[in-house]
């Protein structure tokens, strides 16, 4: 009996010794990999019209393209110039167009809105080209399914939002003017009147930003929240169509609504 136990112990010891050997040899191998990295070479290929196309790939997306074009190629308006965005400027043509258009359409539903920040600069996803505006153009500018909301905010919370805008170096806004001095908002007017911290304000934004999207500030505790049942993109489309119906082209100007020192 004892003999067997000892034998078993020896046996198990032998096994663990074997395992140990394997482990040691593995470790040794890992310290000496078979191959040594000796060189890195790099390149970048520009994907432009000088390249040939893969006809198989073209064929695979053709049915999707046909469906998409049928829905998205409709021309809904015309832009008199290219409206561009920038991360470095406090105010841009694209940002002003976007904010004013959405503000105009939302006011038709809720005239009590004081000012708007319907997107951040990061939410402007593509420049608006000069010339024909197709449905697809607006989808590329505003691809997200965000809903418009109106938040009634205390003056204190509005100030937080204004600070956020100032620290970002400006965001797309309508009916709001400010000067950014040392990353702080100064000379603030809302709807043409000087900002008063004791007052409450109704701000138009998207559900995404209202939920703290793009790290926006000041919107977490609204006194009241109204959902307009209008998507941001649908507001843009409605605005372009309305302009076209009255014979106007889409345009925007830099009017100094936000300046930065």
């Amino acid at each position, binding site marked *: 009996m004892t003999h067997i136990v000892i034998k078993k112990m020896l046996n198990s010891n032998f096994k663990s010794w074997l395992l140990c050997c394997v482990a040691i040899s593995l470790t040794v191998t890992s310290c000496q990999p078979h191959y040594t990295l000796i060189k*890195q070479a790099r390149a970048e290929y520009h994907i*432009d019209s000088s390249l040939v196309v893969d006809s198989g790939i073209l064929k695979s997306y053709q049915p999707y393209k046909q469906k998409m074009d049928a829905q998205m190629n409709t021309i809904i308006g015309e832009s008199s110039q290219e409206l561009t965005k920038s991360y470095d400027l406090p105010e841009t043509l694209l940002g002003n167009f976007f904010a004013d258009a959405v503000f105009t359409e939302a006011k038709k539903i809720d005239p009590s809105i004081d000012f708007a920040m319907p997107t951040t600069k990061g939410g402007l996803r593509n420049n608006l080209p000069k010339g024909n505006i197709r449905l697809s153009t607006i989808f590329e500018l505003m691809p997200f399914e965000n809903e418009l909301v109106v938040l009634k905010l205390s003056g204190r919370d509005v100030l937080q939002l204004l600070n956020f805008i100032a620290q970002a170096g400006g965001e797309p806004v309508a009916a709001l003017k400010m000067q950014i001095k040392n990353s702080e908002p100064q000379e603030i007017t809302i709807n043409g009147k000087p900002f008063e911290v004791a007052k409450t304000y109704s701000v138009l934004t998207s559900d995404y930003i209202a*939920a703290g999207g793009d790290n926006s500030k000041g919107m977490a505790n609204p006194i009241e929240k109204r959902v307009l049942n209008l998507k941001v993109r649908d507001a843009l489309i409605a605005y372009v169509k309305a302009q076209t119906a009255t014979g106007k082209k889409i345009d925007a100007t830099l009017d100094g609504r936000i300046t930065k020192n």
Partner: protein
Amino acid sequence: MEELQKTNRRRFIKQSGVAMATLALSTSYIDAFAKGDLKRITILHTNDVHSRIEPFPMNGSRNQGLGGVARRAALINKIRAEQKNVLLLDAGDIFQGTPYFNLFGGELEMKLMSDMGYDAATMGNHDFDNGIGGFYKQLPNAKFPILISNYDLSDTIMHNATLPYKLFIKDGLKIGVFGLGIELSGLVDKKNYLETQYLDPITKGNEIAAALKNEHHCDLVICLSHLGYQYKENKVSDQVLAKETRNIDLIIGGHTHTFMNAPEDVKNLDGKITTINQVGWAGINLGRIDYYFDHKRNKKIQPATPYAISNYID
């Protein structure tokens, strides 16, 4: 928010923590290739393609006529015909940006990437745009794994749908690829990412990279990152990741849509090279990094770094 950035080449050289060496092609070097002692791995990569299937339309805009999957596919096929060890990778934000996504929910993007033979991709913030369920729904169309190591998805529909990393064996060389995603809170609506838990990318990156190098004995460790190239504010980025980790050879970045004049070589915690590269967005560019390995048999042990870096593919 994405920040459009363009790195300045001069600044890039100045900031590089590791001096670039040029390699004269010695006869022994050519001999090694001929004898088969030299092996070459070709990494091709994209980021932030954002549903850009067709080239940008010819409408006078800055990017007009650029990009397009049909051209990219042909280029990839050409490179594959020339090189036997190719890995094709994407650093996330596959979804959102053209009506193809609004109408088909990402089905086409995944199918075309599968057709092009992508080997792996990570998740970007916009890949959550139709909710985590919307991404999950498209996974049957992806014939490549989604690699993400710092999102704990166990309480979501995606709990078995991703891998933290994957090992690729090419010509006897082992390549470990893992994924890191950006913090979702404040960037993605909670209703879209639900119970996804974000884990610290530096901690996770170090943990996974160490396992890949030391336990799996990878010859090359690649991180697919959607953290972003760099930020003015104190926020984790590819530059921070590179400096504060060990064992990562290459970070393929995304999120900031950064067009770099050349990849950036950063000195990591071990004083070794961690290369960062990102190729803008929308499939305007395809990045390529080739790694050359020498068989060490019958040779004196040489230090792994610095190795030669060339901005020219021969």
